[in-house]
């Protein structure tokens, strides 16, 4: 699928994006300092954004950077900073016996599953990509218009349910934070 229609700039961008993704992901799991791991995650996200760009999904690329690199990893860093960085990690102690073996098995099953799905059907979920009437999304300005239309017509229920889910999560977090505080005051 890949090699037939690509030109050499496309290929170059793809290789760069793939390299960024893989190097970043390896960094996340292999670096010992959690802050360095989080930074490595940003490299991966940039790679993903680049590969979105290469497939003319400009809006998705921008959102990837704004939401994931710009907000979520910042929150991850926040948590790491507040909890403090452990400068001497206890790598040799395994809280769960044999967790490494199970982790490797899990990774193998996941990767194998994804590859099987990709080989057998159109994409990971097996559904055609989100589009209006089966035509692919055009790039440029039209892309955002079409994306907006499909989100607010075809996928409206899923969209609103996601919004409700997020609000419930926020309310839950506020409730948990507040209850702790009140019980502390009562002491």
């Amino acid at each position: 699928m890949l090699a037939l229609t690509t030109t050499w700039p496309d290929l170059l961008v793809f290789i760069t994006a793939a390299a960024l993704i893989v190097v970043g992901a390896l960094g996340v799991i292999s670096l010992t300092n959690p802050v360095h791991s989080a930074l490595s995650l940003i490299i991966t996200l940039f790679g993903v954004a680049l590969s979105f760009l290469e497939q003319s999904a400009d809006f998705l690329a921008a959102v990837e950077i704004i939401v994931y690199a710009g907000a979520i990893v910042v929150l991850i860093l926040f948590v790491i900073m507040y909890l403090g960085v452990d400068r001497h990690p206890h790598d040799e102690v395994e809280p769960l016996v044999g967790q490494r073996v199970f982790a490797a098995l899990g990774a193998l099953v996941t990767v194998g599953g994804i590859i099987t799905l990709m080989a057998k059907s159109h994409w990971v979920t097996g559904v055609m990509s989100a589009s209006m009437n089966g035509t692919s999304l055009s790039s440029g300005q039209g892309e955002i218009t079409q994306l907006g239309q499909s989100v607010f017509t075809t996928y409206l229920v899923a969209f609103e349910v996601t919004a409700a889910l997020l609000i419930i999560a926020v309310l839950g977090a506020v409730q948990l934070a507040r209850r702790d505080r009140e019980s502390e005051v009562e002491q």
Partner: protein
Amino acid sequence: MNALADPLLSGGVTWAVLLIVLIKVVLAFAVVMIAVMLMVWFERKAISDMQSRIGPQRWGPFGILQTLADGIKLFFKEDIIPAEADRVVFKAAPYLVLIPALVTFSIIPVGGTVTIAGHTVQLQVANPPVGILVMLAMSGLSVYGVMLAGWSSGSKYPLLSSVRASAQMISYEAVLGMTIVTVAMASGSLTTRDIVDAQARGVWHWNLVHLGVVPFVIFLIAITAESNRPPFDVVEAESELVGGYNTEYSSIRFALFFLAEFMNTVTASAMIVTLFLGGPAGWAPHVAYLRWIFPILWFIGKTTALAFTYVWFRGALPRLRYDQVMELGWKRLIPLSLGWLLIVAGFMVKIAYGFAMAAAVIFAGTLLSRAFEIGAQRGPDAVLSPVGDRPVSEENIREYFDDEDDSETPRGEK
């Protein structure tokens, strides 16, 4: 709908096109650097005038080369890295602040179009289809520089400052995004070129007037807070935090932070001009060979006026307290920008809907302010108090210290 918004690239990429793009990039870089140099001088000079001082005067006419002299001085100073610092991150952080500041400028249209060797060239480095979202992405990324600079210094005041900075920048990013949605809705496009073109027909079409003045004011406040400029510079509040996230930095690395800060000011002014003041729009004479230069002059004039506004803010307004900064962002600006977005959307569909939306927003606003009032009346015990509260209650701390003082009774026997 053409695939690429830039006419230069639509006819295929040849070596000539590549060369033009390269020249644009180099030129933009040089212009930004010179603009920053002038901005630093302008700010120091204007602030001096407001405070009845003379300000820089030694180097060049009116001290205009002072920034250059400071730069050379900083360049030759000793570069110190604290022993507790995380060296890799410490070295990377200044660039993480500088690069987003530079990239943001690339989407700003500084003029109309010119024709070079048969190619129509827009006077902006890039005109990507996602346009203004690039600015949001870059302001999101500049959080990292500040945050990591503070953390990697291995020192507590920079860390406090960086935590403040990241919280503040993330909060005001939401406000910025909401206001940009209003602008994008009115222009029907996200690209900066289209936003500017939509305002080109005269002052009444400028988004400043067209959208009502409210989004402009919100954006001005939000972008001031986003770039940590006074009066929102709680990040480097000297009286509380020594010097902020860059306390431990010296030499050229400090200069990079300084550069990025002023670059952000220039870019923020240019961005407001683009979004609300019509960018390079303005009167131009009907002479063919003069026509291209007037938009650039208009752009420079408007940007300078806004840059002066920033300096004016710094000269006139006292610094806000940290909790006031956050309250302004979350409790005032975000609801206001959301409400205004709904009103504008209503008016765009039908005038009656617009008035209905306005009524609904006023009703919701009244409810919200009543809720804030009730919340504030519940007293300090029910509301998370703003500053200076200990995470461990006073009694527990006292108990702990009493134990230590009282060496006769070991802690276990209590």
